C-alpha cells in the first residue's frame, strides 16, 4: 500500500472506532423527544432530566462507591502480588503471572456465572455487595498487577540491597526506596482499576443484589425499553468521567498507564 | 569484481552534514575499512553505498556507473549487519536461498550454491537449523555466507564483530580476511575498533566529524598519523613537545631531526609510540635519558610502564617482559630519532 492510501485507510478505521461514541455524545444534546439525527436542535434538556432522575443518580453513587472500594482492595492485593512476582517468585514466576492474568484471559461472562453459583452455593448470596465487589476485584486485579510489575521491572534489586547494606530494615526499604520508585505504577494501576470497575457490566449484572444497580446496569435496563436521548446524556457523563480520570493521570500526573 | 568510486558524497539530516563531501576510490578486490568513533559518519557512508540512505549530494559509482538513484535491491550488494539480521523464521538454508530466489535462480542451482557456500564458511550440516539454534559465531558465518552466496559486486560489513566475545572476535577477523582474499571481492568494512581495521584492511579510512581525516595502509596510519586526533585514536601514543631550532627539535629525549621547513622557534608536537621506546638499566652505560618508573602493568606478553622523565614529563612505554623494572627504580629511556613523527605545531 502506498503511504497516502494507507494513511487514509487508517483514518477511516479510526473514524469507525470513534463513530458510535461520537454519535452518543452528539445525541445527548438533542432537544427533541426522540433520537433523531441530525438533532432537531441543541439543548441541555436531557441532562436536566437525567440529573433529576433519582434512579440514575443512585446508580452513579453505587458505581462510584463500588469502584472506590474495588480500587483500594485491588490496589493493595495487586501491589503485594506484583512485589512477590518480581523479587520472590523464583521458578514460580510464570505460574504467578498466568494466575494473576487469568481473570483477564477468561471470558467475563463465564467468570460472572461461576461466581454467581459459588456465592449461592456457599450461602453468601447476593443480598450484600460482597459478591459484586469480589467480582470487581478479580476483574481489575490483572490491570493492577500489570501496571505495578511493569514499573518494578525497571526497579534494580541492588537498590534494595544497597539500602540493606546501609542498615535499613525490610519495612524501611519498602517505604523509603521501593514505594517512591513504583508509585507511578501503583497510582496508574489504581486509576485504571477504578475506570474498569466503573464500566464493567456482565459481572455486575449477574451478581447485583436487589436495589444495587450500577450505572451500566441501569443504562442497559433503560435501553431495553426506552429510546429517549436521556440515555445519551447519561452515557456522555460516564464517558467524560472516565476520560477525565485518564487525562488527569496521563497528562497532569504524567503517568504511563499500561492497559495490557 | 568491481571498483567503487565515491565523489564529494554528502549526507545532511538537517543539523549540519553527517557526512561532509568525502571522496574515495576503492580498487577492485580491495578491503577497505571505515574507522572512527561513533557519530563520525562511517555507518552513514556505508548505508549510502548500500542505498539505505539517500545521498544529499555527490556520486557513488560502481565500475563507473552512478548508482545513487538505484534502489537497494537493484544495487547488487552483499551486506552483513551488526546484529546479523538473520531471518528468525527461516532455516539456514532458507536464509541463504532468499537472495538467490530474488534473482530467480533455478532450484537445483540454488542447492548447489548453498552447499558450496556452507562449505566455505565451515557450516556444512547446519542447513536445517534455525538461527536461534546457532551460536553467535555460527550466526555470524551464516550472515557472511548469505551476503556472499549471491555473488554481489561489493561486500559491505557494518561492525559485524561487535557482538562477539574477544576470543571469537580475533578468530573471525582472520576468517573474514582469508575468505575475502579467496573470493577476491571488493569490501567495505565499518568499525570503531582500530585493531580490527588494522589487521584486516588493505587500506584504512579514518573518519572524524563526517570528514576523512586520513586514508592509507595500516602502517601509514599507525606510524605516520596525519594529525593528533588520528594518532590518539589509532593506538596509544606519547605526545612529545619541543622547540624547533636549526632543523632539530629539542625534546626531553634529546634533539630530534625534523624535515618540512618549520620555522625556528615554533613549538612542535611529535608522536612517539610506546613500543618505540627502549628501557635500559642505569648501569648499562648506554645512551639515554634518566627516568623513574612510576607504575607498571603486566599483561603476559607485554609490560606497560608509566615513567617520569627528569624534566617532570611522563611517558608510557611498552616492552617485552624480559627485563622487569620495579616501581620507583631509576632507568634509562632511549627512543630512536626516526620513531618520532611530527604532528604539527602545538596550538
Amino acid at each position, binding site marked *: 500500500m502506498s503511504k497516502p492510501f494507507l494513511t487514509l485507510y487508517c483514518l477511516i478505521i479510526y473514524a469507525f472506532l*470513534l463513530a458510535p461514541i461520537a454519535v452518543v455524545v452528539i445525541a445527548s444534546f438533542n432537544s427533541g423527544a426522540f433520537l433523531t439525527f441530525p438533532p432537531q436542535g441543541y439543548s441541555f434538556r436531557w441532562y436536566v432530566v437525567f440529573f433529576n432522575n433519582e434512579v440514575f443518580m443512585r446508580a452513579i453513587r453505587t458505581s462510584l462507591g463500588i469502584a472506590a472500594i474495588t480500587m483500594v482492595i485491588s490496589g493493595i492485593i495487586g501491589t503485594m502480588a506484583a512485589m512477590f512476582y518480581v523479587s520472590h517468585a523464583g521458578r514460580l514466576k510464570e505460574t504467578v503471572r498466568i494466575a494473576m492474568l487469568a481473570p483477564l484471559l477468561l471470558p467475563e*461472562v463465564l467468570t460472572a456465572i461461576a461466581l454467581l453459583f459459588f456465592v449461592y452455593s456457599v450461602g453468601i448470596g447476593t443480598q450484600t455487595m460482597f459478591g459484586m465487589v469480589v467480582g470487581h476485584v478479580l476483574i481489575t486485579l490483572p490491570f493492577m498487577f500489570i501496571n505495578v510489575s511493569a514499573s518494578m521491572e525497571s526497579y534494580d534489586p541492588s537498590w534494595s540491597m544497597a539500602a540493606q547494606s546501609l542498615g535499613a530494615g525490610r519495612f524501611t526499604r519498602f517505604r523509603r526506596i521501593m514505594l517512591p520508585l513504583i508509585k507511578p505504577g501503583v497510582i496508574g494501576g489504581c486509576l485504571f482499576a477504578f475506570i474498569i470497575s466503573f464500566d464493567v457490566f456482565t459481572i455486575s449484572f449477574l451478581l447485583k443484589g436487589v436495589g444495587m444497580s450500577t450505572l*451500566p446496569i441501569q443504562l442497559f435496563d433503560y435501553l431495553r425499553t426506552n429510546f429517549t436521548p436521556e440515555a445519551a446524556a447519561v452515557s456522555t457523563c*460516564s464517558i467524560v468521567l472516565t476520560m477525565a480520570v485518564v487525562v488527569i493521570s496521563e497528562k497532569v500526573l504524567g503517568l504511563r498507564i499500561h492497559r495490557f | 569484481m568491481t571498483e567503487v568510486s565515491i565523489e564529494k558524497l554528502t549526507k545532511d539530516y538537517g543539523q549540519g552534514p553527517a557526512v561532509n563531501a568525502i571522496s574515495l576510490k576503492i580498487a577492485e578486490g580491495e578491503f577497505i575499512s571505515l574507522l572512527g568513533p561513533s557519530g563520525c559518519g562511517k555507518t552513514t557512508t556505508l548505508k549510502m553505498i548500500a542505498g539505505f540512505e539517500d545521498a544529499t549530494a555527490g556520486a557513488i559509482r560502481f565500475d563507473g556507473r552512478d548508482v545513487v538513484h538505484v534502489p537497494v535491491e537493484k544495487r*547488487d550488494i552483499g551486506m552483513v549487519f551488526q546484529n546479523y539480521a538473520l531471518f528468525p523464521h527461516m532455516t539456514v538454508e532458507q536464509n541463504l536461498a532468499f537472495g538467490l530466489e530474488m534473482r530467480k535462480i533455478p532450484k537445483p542451482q540454488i542447492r548447489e550454491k548453498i552447499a558450496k557456500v556452507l562449505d566455505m564458511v565451515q557450516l556444512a550440516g547446519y542447513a536445517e537449523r534455525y538461527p536461534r539454534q546457532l551460536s553467535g559465531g555460527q550466526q555470524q558465518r551464516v550472515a557472511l555466507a548469505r*551476503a556472499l552466496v549471491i555473488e554481489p559486486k561489493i561486500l559491505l560489513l557494518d561492525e559485524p564483530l561487535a557482538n562477539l566475545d574477544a576470543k571469537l572476535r580475533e578468530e573471525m577477523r582472520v576468517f573474514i580476511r582469508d575468505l575475502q582474499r579467496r573470493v577476491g571481492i571488493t569490501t567495505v568494512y565499518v568499525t570503531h575498533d582500530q585493531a580490527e581495521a588494522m589487521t584486516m584492511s588493505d587500506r584504512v579510512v579514518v573518519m572524524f566529524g563526517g570528514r576523512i581525516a586520513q586514508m592509507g595502509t595500516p602502517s601509514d596510519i599507525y606510524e605516520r598519523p596525519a594529525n593528533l586526533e588520528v594518532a590518539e585514536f589509532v593506538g596509544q601514543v606519547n605526545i612529545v613537545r619541543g622547540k624547533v631550532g636549526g632543523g632539530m627539535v629539542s625534546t626531553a629525549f634529546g634533539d630530534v631531526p625534523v624535515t618540512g621547513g618549520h620555522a625556528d622557534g615554533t613549538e612542535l608536537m611529535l608522536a612517539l609510540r610506546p613500543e618505540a621506546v627502549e628501557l635500559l638499566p642505569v648501569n648499562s652505560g648506554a645512551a639515554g635519558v634518566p627516568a623513574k618508573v612510576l607504575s607498571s602493568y603486566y599483561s603476559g606478553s607485554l609490560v606497560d610502564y608509566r615513567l617520569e622523565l627528569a624534566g617532570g614529563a611522563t611517558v608510557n612505554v611498552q616492552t617485552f617482559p624480559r627485563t622487569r623494572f620495579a616501581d620507583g627504580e631509576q632507568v634509562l629511556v632511549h627512543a630512536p630519532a626516526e620513531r618520532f613523527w611530527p604532528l604539527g605545531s602545538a596550538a
Partner: protein
Amino acid sequence: MNAAPAKKGLGPLLLIAPAAVLIGVFLVLPYLNIVVMSFRMPGQGTPYAPGFTFGNYGKFFADSFYIMQVVNTLWIGFLTTFLCLVLGYPVAWQLARGNSAFRALGYALVLSPLLVGIVIRSYGWTILLGNNGIINRTLSSWGVIDGPLPLMYNALGIIIALVHVFLPFMILPIMSAIQGIDPSLELAARSLGASKLTAFRRITLPLSLPGMQAGCILVFVLSLSAYVTPSLIGGLRVKTMAVTVVDALIDTFQWPFGSAMALMLSVTGAVVVIIFGRLTVMKWKA
C-alpha cells in the same frame, strides 16, 4: 532480576497470600463448581434440586435449536475475528512503523474506545444501525434506498458492533509483534534483492504471525462470550449462545441447564482455539 529466590522463611509468601486466596477461592473453585452444577437436577422454583443427572446434557443434544445456536455463535465469532484481522492489520502496521507524530495520536484513538463502557458503545451502534438510525435515514434521504436496510436485530449488526468492540484487541498484539521485529531484517532482505513489497511479504508478515495468532484467539474468545452487544443489537430475534445462557440463568433460573450450555460453548471454543493453535504452530519460535 530474579536473583534472590524464596529465602528467609514465610515473609515473602505473605505478599502473594491475599491474591492466591482470592484467585483460588473465588476463581478456581467457582469454575470447578460450574462443572458440578451442570450435573445437578433441575429445580422447581429453586435454581437446582438435590441429586445428580446427565439430563442437562441430554436436553442440550436432543434439541437442534441449541446445536444451531452454538454453530451460529461460532460463525459470528469466525467472521468477527476474520474482519478484525483484515481491517486491523494495516492499522497495526502503521502504528508500529508509521511516522511518529501520527503514531501517538493513532495509538490514543485505538485505545480510547476501550475506556468507554461496553453498554455505551453498543448503544451507539443502536443509534447508528437502527431502522430509524442514522445510516438508514441518511441513505433514504439521499434516495439510495426505499425502505430501511435490516442492519439491526440480525447477525450483520452484531458482527459490525463486535468488530468495533474487539478491533483494538486485534490491533494491539499485532502492533507489538511488528514493533518487536528488528527493522534490519527488512533491510537485509532489501540488500539481498527483495523489493519493499517482497520484504514485507516474506519477512515482516510471517514474523508478525505470533501477534496475529494472539489477536485472533483473543478476539474469537471474546466474541463467543460477548453478552451485552449481541443482546442489545440482536434484540429478541437473534440470540447468541452467551445470551441464551445468561437468560436461562437470570430469567428462568435453570442453573444446571445453563451450566451445561456454558460448558458446551466453552469446550467448543477451546477445541477451535486448540486446532487453530496447531494449524498456526511456528517451528522457528523457541
